[in-house]
């Protein structure tokens, strides 16, 4: 069964550094999402992406964040200058039509020191 994959599984970085989190959505899906979960808290929406454009973003997704689909398979989340409060589990999700179910990847745990 096809699934969403994410790399790396765990990333440790110093405050102020740039990080890129990578996702490979399911191949025939058209809608892509990033969510994050700070330890012990609920899953929060960051951004959705369709047709090479951001379709929706939350207030969390400020100028420090960007997303890109650099080729036909990868979907990336970049944080330009990480802060301590960016430490969280970041989940990528994809959906074939955007209408119903979203399929989640296993997540990348980001630790900012």
């Amino acid at each position: 069964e096809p699934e969403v994959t994410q790399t790396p599984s765990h990333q440790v970085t110093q405050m102020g550094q740039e990080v890129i989190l990578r996702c490979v959505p399911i191949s025939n899906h058209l809608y892509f999402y990033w969510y994050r979960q700070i330890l012990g808290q609920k899953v929060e929406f960051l951004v959705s992406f369709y047709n090479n454009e951001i379709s929706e973003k939350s207030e969390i997704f400020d100028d420090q964040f960007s997303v890109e689909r650099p080729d036909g398979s990868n979907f990336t989340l970049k944080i330009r200058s990480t802060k301590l409060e960016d430490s969280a589990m970041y989940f990528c999700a994809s959906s074939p039509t955007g209408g119903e179910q979203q399929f989640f990847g296993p997540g990348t745990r980001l630790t900012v020191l």
Partner: protein
Amino acid sequence: AQSVTQLDSQVPVFEEAPVELRCNYSSSVSVYLFWYVQYPNQGLQLLLKYLSGSTLVKGINGFEAEFNKSQTSFHLRKPSVHISDTAEYFCAVKVTGTASKLTFGTGTRLQVTL
């Protein structure tokens, strides 16, 4: 805007006992409803979903949920839990007919003991 309330942050239960995890939602438009499970140090796995039709939906691992529009609830139930059901359970909603985001509740930690 949509919101989801999971009133129980933790639910302890003995193995083979029944369990109900509560979820209430608020939305001015029609929504789809989902339950996701997160095992320790793992990602989110879909347990079940309500899109339309029968209000009683069955999911994986013996779980089921009932959509109650008048009470805006979507409670998750299992008649007999196992130790392996110990996990975090998240209720989520999504506006129908759009490619919009999922809005999650704060989660309920189900702790099954012998």
